């Protein structure tokens, strides 16, 4: 938008205001004010800003394998991931419907990320076609698409059955894996016990017809297409405009969280780059979740500027990006479970960049804590391409996503710091990240109360307990060391869990990897203790 235009718009809204004052019934097209913005006008207030998007690497497009003429006498594998819902019923009906076809129902073993090579090889040898069904949440779609693309590469025609709320996630995921024209069929999602009541025969038949068509209908030109995808380059400069225009532009393009940013001008980005000795074009990660984009040092600096970080935070920012590329975050980035990422620091960097380890460390106020937390949030959006309702399927959203970052209070802690427990040297600076972030705090009481709170989490995983240094000292005087406290909480909490959710994720130093463990006996303790001042010894905080 030119500044002239913006002035016009702002005059318009102001004029609207003047004439409308007092006339309460006057209808004014709301749209005017909605898109109109801007008050700044001086030319010198203009910014030329760099593009914060992660770089999508070109990838080969996977052509769909040739379809079958018909399914007569063929072997069709029906593969299901995790908890089957109406897929089981669907497989049964499909078997009846296709009398001359043998339908083999198989559960893929393990969690969503388990490749189950055994089953894949079996399919390669025995199947003529494959149906892949899942009814799980947003986090699993990506894995499903990946699995299907591998089967398609064998030359076996496949189709994906997916619950209709996840349509957009499937489209985003299939594009990402180089198979944008992957064939899928939508099915309504209904409670297991009511499959036959709530899904009419007609609906079932429609899904079945869809499956048959997907496996037999000849491929279109588009579907046969091979070659390279994502070859377009993103220009380095995003746009040029006033402060408000920059805000609007970035928000409209889905590069921000809805809050103001600092315009990432060449000047600011250069200044930010002074914080690291690494060259601007060095790749920090090539799998920035959720879209698995490539992030360079310069891109990191661009988002650092946007988040309000200072140049000296740069090493911390680079470590965060590198860490977030860990496959453990693939699921968290897409899941409908509305995770936020808990980020905490250990080692000398905490003091060097003046983080606040004391009262209100998790809350707003300290520039390092707040802006580094916000950096991760913006990085996931801009560098990773996360979009609500598209590849970020969060059902609820999470206000802890704006910023959730703090340091451990090593100086006051009677125990060894977290990173030392995890095998790092005390002098090393370490960032630890974990998916979770449904923060529960202020448990007034002893370890049993903390355990009760941990047990009360609805998510199937462990937690981090933030404990005041004084309280930690008290427990130490009683003869308990850190691992004793952790163990005590874990052992007390787990038996209190609702029987319906006996599975716990492990929570290691590095992000949880999504494997189910036996929490009572697994040496990787599910509860971790971090010392952080809380003003009161009596009130630790528990994060899930």
């Amino acid at each position, binding site marked *: 938008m030119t500044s002239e*235009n913006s002035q016009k718009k702002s005059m318009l809204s102001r004029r609207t205001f003047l004439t409308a004052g007092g006339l309460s019934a006057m*209808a004014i097209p709301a749209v005017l004010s909605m898109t109109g913005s801007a008050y700044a006008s001086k030319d010198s207030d203009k910014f030329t800003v760099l593009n914060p998007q992660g770089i*999508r690497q070109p990838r080969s497009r996977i052509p769909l394998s040739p379809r079958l003429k018909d399914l007569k006498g063929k072997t069709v594998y029906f593969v299901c991931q995790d908890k089957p819902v109406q897929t089981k019923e669907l497989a049964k009906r499909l078997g009846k419907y296709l009398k001359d076809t043998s339908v083999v129902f198989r559960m893929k073993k393990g969690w969503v990320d388990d490749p189950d090579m055994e089953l894949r090889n079996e399919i390669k040898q025995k199947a003529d076609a494959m149906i892949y069904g899942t009814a799980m949440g947003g986090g699993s779609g990506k894995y499903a698409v990946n699995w299907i693309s591998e089967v398609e590469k064998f030359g076996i025609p496949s189709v994906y059955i997916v619950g209709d709320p996840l349509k957009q996630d499937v489209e985003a995921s299939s594009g990402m894996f180089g198979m*944008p024209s992957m064939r899928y069929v939508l099915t309504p999602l209904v409670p297991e*016990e009511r499959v036959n009541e709530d899904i009419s025969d007609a609906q079932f038949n429609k899904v079945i017809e869809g499956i048959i068509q997907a496996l037999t209908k000849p491929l279109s030109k588009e579907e046969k297409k091979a070659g390279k995808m994502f070859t377009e380059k993103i220009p380095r400069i995003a746009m040029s405009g006033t402060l408000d225009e920059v805000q609007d532009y970035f928000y*409209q393009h889905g590069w921000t969280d809805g809050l103001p940013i600092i315009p990432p001008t060449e000047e600011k980005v*250069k200044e930010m780059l002074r914080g690291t000795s690494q060259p601007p074009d060095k790749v920090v990660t090539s799998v920035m979740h959720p879209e698995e984009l490539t992030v360079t040092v310069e891109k990191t600096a661009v988002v650092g500027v946007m988040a309000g970080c200072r140049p000296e935070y740069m090493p911390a920012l680079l470590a965060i990006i590198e860490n977030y590329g860990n496959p453990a975050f693939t699921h968290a980035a897409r899941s409908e479970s509305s995770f936020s990422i808990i980020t905490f620091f250990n080692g000398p960097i905490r003091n060097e960049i003046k983080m606040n380890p004391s009262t209100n460390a998790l809350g707003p106020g300290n520039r390092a804590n707040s802006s580094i937390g916000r950096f991760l949030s913006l990085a996931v959006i801009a560098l990773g391409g996360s979009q609500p309702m598209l590849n970020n399927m969060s059902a609820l959203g999470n206000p802890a996503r704006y910023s959730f970052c703090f340091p451990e209070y090593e100086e006051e802690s009677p125990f060894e710091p977290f990173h030392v427990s995890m095998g790092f040297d005390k002098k090393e600076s370490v960032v630890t990240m974990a998916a979770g972030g449904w923060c529960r705090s202020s448990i007034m009481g002893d370890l049993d109360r903390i355990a009760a709170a941990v*047990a009360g989490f609805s998510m199937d995983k462990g937690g981090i307990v933030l404990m005041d240094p004084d309280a930690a000292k008290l427990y130490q005087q009683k003869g308990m060391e850190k691992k004793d406290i952790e163990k005590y909480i874990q052992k007390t909490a787990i038996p209190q869990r609702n029987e319906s959710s006996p599975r716990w994720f492990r929570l290691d130093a590095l992000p949880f990897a999504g494997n189910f463990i036996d929490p009572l006996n697994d040496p990787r303790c599910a509860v971790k203790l971090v010392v952080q001042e809380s003003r009161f010894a009596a009130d630790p905080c528990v994060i899930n």
Partner: protein
Amino acid sequence: MHYTSPPNNKKNKLELKERITGMKNKSNNNDVSRRGFLKGAAAAAVGIPAVTLPLACSPGKNNTTSAKNEELLEVLNPRAELHSLPVTGLTAPRPADLAGKKIALLSEKPDAAAFFDAMEKLLKEKYPTAEILRFPSAASPMQPDNSREVAAKCDVWLQGVKSSGSSTVDTEAKLEKLGRPGVTFTVDGLLAQRKRLAEANGMPTLRILTIPAVKFFASEKAPDKMMEIASFVFDKTIKGLTDPLTEEEKNPAPFSFDYGPITFKGKSYTEANESFQQYFIDNQMGDGIPLTPPTKEAVEWMLTGTSRSPQEELGLMTPKDGMATIEKVAVNSVMAGAKPEYLPVIIATVEAMVDKHFNLYHISTGTLNSKLLMWVNGPIAKEIGMNSGQGFLGYGFRANSSIGRAVSLCMINIGWALRDAEIGMQGQPARYCNYVFAENEKESPWVSFAVSRGYKPEESTVTVEECITINSLGPGGGMDCQPLASDLDQLAAMIQGFTGPVPPESKFTGGPGLGSSNAVDIINSTYCEIGIYPTLAQQAFDAGYSKQELTQMLCDKYRVKWDILNKTQKKQIKEAAEAGTIPGLTPNDCKPGGTIPSINSNHIVLLVVGGTVGQCIGFYSVGSIVTDPENPDAPKPDFVTKTVHRAALTKAGR
């Protein structure tokens, strides 16, 4: 064949596909963005920075290409004028000796009783002729003020121990003004806050003694250890009661603050902006992430959103009693990144926050790390683009994000809730933007919250609540396709399980919950809002539940056994049952083997919110709605709701 563009209900946003892949949108009708984009790209192609910003970033000497002129950035002051009581010094003369004096000990909370037991013993040993009087003390605005009675009976007083962020120093200030000298105790972590409270009461030099928090809390149930603490502070206590007043204590410096605009200089706008950001963080006027500079122009622009006068006063905001005016709200809204059309909603929220029945004090000062929960009903929500569907708690929706953040900044700058003295313990990441959403009225099978509370469907309203903790019903929601009964059972369990999987009984037997011993209070002061996703609501509706029936059902699922109540509690509950003040409680329940509700079903709110990917969320609070201190007999509302009005840019809320 599947790349059809998905339904896009966000008008101002680009096509989802384009946003995600970064591919150019062929039918880009967003003229504004494209032009900006192309222009930037063209400038880059010919190698000229489109704007001649100086490269002041290179270390060392001044860059010769820097702009000749200094950039000035003038911003309006976001801090609201304080209406605290006028500053007075201590006037009550200290006695030279405590022998023969009447010494009042006021314990603030039950946990302080053991401390004062020890103190009483020590005082009696040292001053056998002194008379020790014991009183309770009003620790919060909710409790009765007994300062006149105490002043009439004693010569000197000791008060405390302040152990939670939300207690006040009103009694101390009143006693000093009534001519009775004394000393107040606080645990060390709360000293800054106690001092700030003394300032707000106009008595900055009040004598405050600290005791170590960790020892205090660890010794609560051990009288001998409490004696150690009391002995530790005993000498200081005597000095505090008997040392003559110093000149400074008598005449403290008056409070002064410059409410004028603040100017930042820099070689470029970017530099001036950087000094603005850092200054606001250093002076506790921001939240640590970038703010939009509230220039005069920006604030004027913001004010176009309302037809109310900028000078209109909305009320005093706790904890420090800053006057919330429309203009100050607008300044903070600009900083938060809001747009003018959001302003009327932010104003209505502030009006609700300063309402006498709303316990904002507990949110801004409490040690529970609580945050504000607010939801919007009525047509304005859709008009300003609030998200009521999937991912409604953030991020990515400017209306939700910036309204919630504006409210936080108002608490900091209008209420002067300064982080070193006020905010929580560990702090709370949800405090950046709070819990802000609109009810999904379109997909709800029931009438909205506002309509069920007597508002018209065309009215737009904001309702505020405190949120102490949340729980989400994660994968147990729609995606796992549980049957209805099991989902509802989980909801009921969530209401009961907010403090961990403890049976509701423990609320009444001194377990987690609140300090009150009155059983009716325990039932009435718990509040719970439940966000139900539309599909589940529809299922419940199809199964024949009205909203009220469902609420009552959830409430009745886990009832408390009559037999676990103590004698006093039984009496209180029986009275309430006879008066019929608690739904679902009848005299018939009050007998051995009977059960009573553990929460008042009027305080459970079912809000339909979320999208097709289903999960539920519960928000929990205790004691967020209080009696009006000036009018204690007036009935308490169940919720504080305000109508959005005099909006200038939207059709709704005019």
